[in-house]
């Protein structure tokens, strides 16, 4: 059974703080993704990585960065959190190649005050 875990279910931060969201998968997947989920907007891709130390921008990368030092771990970094980054953040992973199922973690609900 594929398991994608995220470091926190709920997180409350102050404006301007640096925020780290961690994601770990245990199925040796090559691809990892970070999405944010907002009502009415569905899931929007922030960044994805197809290999260690490799990353590509998604549709909404502004204000975010990522790090992938190990195959199983993908971190999302908010350099200076802002209130408009209050959202649900979802991590996913998949095997390399096209059309492979993405497996999602349970999400981290981030509130920036």
């Amino acid at each position, binding site marked *: 059974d594929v398991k*994608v875990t995220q470091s926190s279910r709920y997180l409350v931060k102050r404006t301007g703080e640096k925020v780290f969201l961690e994601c770990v998968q245990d199925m040796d997947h090559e*691809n990892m993704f970070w*999405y944010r989920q907002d*009502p*009415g*907007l*569905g*899931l*929007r*891709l922030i960044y*994805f990585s*197809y290999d260690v130390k490799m990353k590509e921008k*998604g*549709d909404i990368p502004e204000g975010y960065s990522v790090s992938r030092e190990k195959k199983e771990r993908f971190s999302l970094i908010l350099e200076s959190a802002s209130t408009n980054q209050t959202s649900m953040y*979802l991590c*996913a992973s*998949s095997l390399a*190649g*096209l*059309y*492979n*199922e*993405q*497996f*999602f*973690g*349970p*999400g981290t609900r981030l509130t920036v005050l």
Partner: protein
Amino acid sequence: QQQVKQSPQSLIVQKGGIPIINCAYENTAFDYFPWYQQFPGKGPALLIAIRPDVSEKKEGRFTISFNKSAKQFSLHIMDSQPGDSATYFCAALGAAGNKLTFGGGTRVLVKP
């Protein structure tokens, strides 16, 4: 601008009814259309997917209908049950990459 438009945003049906969720896309490069199901407190999970070379696909009580010329596809939940109450997302993927584009989601409530 959403490349995949999903409607309605929410839907309430009685047990046994058939909720229908519709999605439309513009990008003709899309060639894989999955649906994800998300229960409260959980991440989305793949429910069923279709390629544009078929017009319909069934898996259990879930059916996808696909209209390539209209660039539309829909999910039907036959004989819906209260356990089907969830948020459903359509999505699309093109051969150019592994980036899924999601619709806005539909919250389905099946009343007992």
